């Protein structure tokens, strides 16, 4: 009997060893029906990636398969705030402008004129059709901008638009009126959050139905949504611009991170989002796959509930901050895939100012605790939910705080409970993150306005005044000065402690080209080309 048990265990160990051994020598079976290719000449504007510098001849592919980490609730970009929605809708909708090589480039709008601080005149292309066959007109653009201005999800970006007075001057000209001067307007119009939707299609169905079968102007049109499994898009024959190098785009919903990695390795998908950092090196070493990584526009921070008596005390906040080695937290919690945060917004955001990282000085921490009346120690509590990086940050911080006599307890709740506690101001201290929707300081500092300071709960009018000034000043050099003053002030007050600028990325098959990392996390799928 013992021999048999040993044999059985040996069999399981053998299975584990074979399964876990280096997979790079494998010869994976390609997913059936995915790669019927037909050679075509390489487009003249194709850019080779670092792995394939010599511009290879591109091929057409039947399907571009993308693995998403969760199912979007909707594909209407004005009705959600999750990346899954924006990735799914990116090729369906188009914005008015795009940023190419850092320059604002005309897209659905051919020109703009800032008539005065409150008026923007837009001239539109006249050769753009919606997927339902209707021509895009100024009415559709007015409708889309007003939709963005009134939606709960996009009012932070388009809320300055005066919906009553914004109008179509003629079929190709729009006059956008603003309620107050709003500097990020063009930036917002050049982002994935600006989507020109078909007014006729939207009005012919209700908002929810539009989110399940949207009609835009992009190179890919909606085909089918199989709940829980995939969203299928197909090429739009009458697209006004250059058509993509693939006929269909299939967005597969694969919740498990390891399964997305495996599908990428075996060729089941071409692109996979939210790859676990532990798999990055494996994908980089595999000749069949590549990782596209970079700093996101997000920041992870230690969030104090400033309405709480304890954390409302600046001495306590700073005592906690001095006890934390920010560099070590970022490095350990993110397994090397983050930089220590040295400011209040990502470095790629215009107006970013380096103010930190906060000094690690346990002695000073003890001194401040003494001044605050906690020389005999302090008990604090973290409340968090199941999130790998936040939890890792909290565990590291817990051990650091112990060194200065601060005892930490950690309460783990589920996300819904956490959100509810946050909304009710019941969170004492936690780790969280936010990310800019567009590369603009007003968007990067979205957690700070008094009306939206749900987690931080500061009550500092000076912050609101500087935010208003920054948002309403058009000259960039003046804005930079205002935001620099604001960041210095935030550093002085330390209502939150910046911890990490995470490095994010997505994986792709090696034959995917012209597909670069973008800090927004929403890449341009239509530009993708394929190597032989």
């Amino acid at each position, binding site marked *: 009997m013992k021999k048999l048990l040993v044999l059985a265990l040996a069999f399981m160990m053998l299975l584990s060893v074979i399964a876990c051994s280096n997979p790079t020598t494998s010869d994976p079976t390609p997913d059936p029906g995915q790669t019927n290719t037909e050679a075509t000449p390489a487009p003249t504007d194709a850019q080779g990636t670092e792995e394939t510098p010599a511009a290879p001849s591109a091929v057409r592919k039947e399907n571009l398969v993308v693995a998403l980490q969760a199912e979007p609730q909707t594909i209407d970009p004005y009705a959600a705030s999750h990346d899954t929605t924006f990735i799914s809708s990116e090729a369906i909708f188009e914005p008015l402008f795009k940023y190419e090589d850092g320059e604002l480039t005309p897209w659905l709008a051919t020109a703009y004129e800032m008539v005065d601080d409150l008026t923007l005149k837009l001239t539109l292309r006249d050769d753009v059709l919606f997927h339902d066959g209707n021509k895009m007109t100024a009415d559709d653009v007015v409708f889309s901008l007003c939709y963005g201005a009134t939606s709960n999800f996009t009012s932070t970006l388009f809320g300055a638009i005066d919906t009553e007075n914004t109008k179509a001057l003629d079929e190709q000209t729009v006059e956008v009126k603003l309620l107050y001067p709003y500097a990020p307007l063009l930036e917002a119009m050049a982002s994935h959050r600006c989507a020109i939707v078909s007014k006729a299609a939207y009005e012919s169905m209700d908002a929810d139905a539009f989110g399940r079968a949207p009609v835009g102007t992009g190179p890919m049109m909606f085909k089918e949504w199989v709940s829980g499994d995939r969203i299928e898009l197909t090429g739009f024959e009458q697209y006004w611009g250059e058509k993509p190098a693939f006929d269909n785009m299939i967005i597969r919903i694969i919740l498990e991170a390891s399964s997305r990695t495996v599908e990428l390795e075996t060729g089941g998908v071409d692109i996979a989002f939210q790859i676990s950092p532990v798999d990055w090196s494996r994908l980089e070493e595999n000749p069949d796959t590549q990782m596209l990584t970079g700093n996101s526009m997000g920041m992870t921070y230690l969030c104090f509930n400033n309405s709480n008596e304890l954390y409302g005390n600046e001495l306590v906040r700073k005592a906690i901050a001095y006890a934390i080695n920010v560099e070590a937290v970022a490095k350990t919690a993110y397994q090397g895939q983050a930089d220590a945060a040295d400011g209040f917004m990502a470095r790629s955001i215009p107006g970013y100012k380096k103010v930190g990282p906060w000094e690690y000085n346990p002695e000073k921490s003890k001194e401040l605790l003494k001044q605050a009346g906690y020389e005999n120690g302090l008990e604090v509590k973290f409340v968090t939910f199941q999130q790998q990086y936040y939890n890792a940050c909290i565990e590291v911080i817990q051990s650091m705080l112990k060194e200065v006599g601060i005892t930490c307890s950690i309460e783990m709740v589920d996300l819904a409970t956490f*959100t509810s506690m946050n909304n009710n101001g019941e969170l004492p201290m936690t780790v969280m993150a936010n990310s800019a929707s567009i590369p603009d300081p007003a968007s990067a500092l979205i957690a700070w306005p008094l009306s939206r300071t749900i987690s931080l709960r500061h009550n500092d009018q000076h912050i609101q005044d500087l935010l208003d000034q920054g948002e309403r000043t058009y000259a960039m050099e003046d804005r930079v000065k205002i935001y620099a003053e604001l960041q210095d002030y935030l550093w002085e007050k330390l209502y939150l402690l910046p911890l990490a600028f995470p490095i994010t990325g997505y994986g792709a098959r090696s034959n995917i080209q012209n597909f670069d990392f973008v800090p927004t996390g929403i890449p341009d799928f239509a530009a993708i080309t394929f190597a032989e």
Partner: protein
Amino acid sequence: MLRYIAKRIFLMIPVLLGISFVIFLLMYFTPGDPAQMILGDLATKEEVEALREEMGLNDSFFERYFRYMGDLLKGDLGTSYTTKLPVWDEISARLPVTAKVAFFVIVFAVLIGVPIGILSAVRQYTIIDSITRVMALLGITMPSFWFALLLVLLFSVKLGWLPASGLYGPAYYVLPIISISAASVAIITRTARSSMLEVIRQDYIDTARAKGQKERVVLFKHALLNALIPILTVVGIQFAGSLGGAVVNEQVFAIPGIGKLMVDAIKARNYPLVTGSVLVLSLLQSLVNLFIDLLYAFVDPRIRSQYSRSKKKTKALNGAVTAGAGTAAGKGE
């Protein structure tokens, strides 16, 4: 028999009502705000409050419950908070996938588990029996997600024989079925073995052998039929369990099943979807149990005769009551 079935189906109604009340109560008292979950962290209090009002979340528990039950009586399971789709549409899109996988899993588990269990019982204390018992122990104790990942790494990544995830053709079913059924195979094997062991020790089996019956006939006609009842019970439990309980494997293999739908709905505090999913799964579980009970009668003549006897008894009783009533009526006249 038909009367019995009708009675069982009728009894499901209070069961489902009770389940709906308990689920509604649990969701009501669970912390978390669906409106806040939908709008995210940065929504203002006013925005959240407006959405709560729109969704009817500010109404009292009983108002919400009776509104839900009223809609349910009209065949409306409500609308999902997150996708805004009718709950039935969400469930009906996922249920066939889950049912198909569960069916294949149970067929595979029975085809493997029952013969091995019988063989193990017939060859008790031989090397076959020992191997079977050890493998069954492994099947039960091994975490199914770990086994699933090992299978994927071996057959998809290393060997490249089978696809890693999704359900787009016959080959895609192989790994999910093997990994999900591992525990069921083990449990059915153990049950079949112990049940057969109990039966083959009975005197009537010795009698059958003494009468010169072939061993095949003794085993399959005399022994197996009598050993089937416990096996059927376990098969029913396993099938019902795999209808809603394969959440982790659904995640590993990207199977768009109802288990994952339900877990996501709980996380999002999507009350109508949670209640609808639980009700549908409870109904299915009750139907599976009923089906298994009916199978008992099919395989065991003693149980079949009990149904017949109760029918005869009822007839006789009804006759007596009618006669009594007639007499009473006659006396009354």
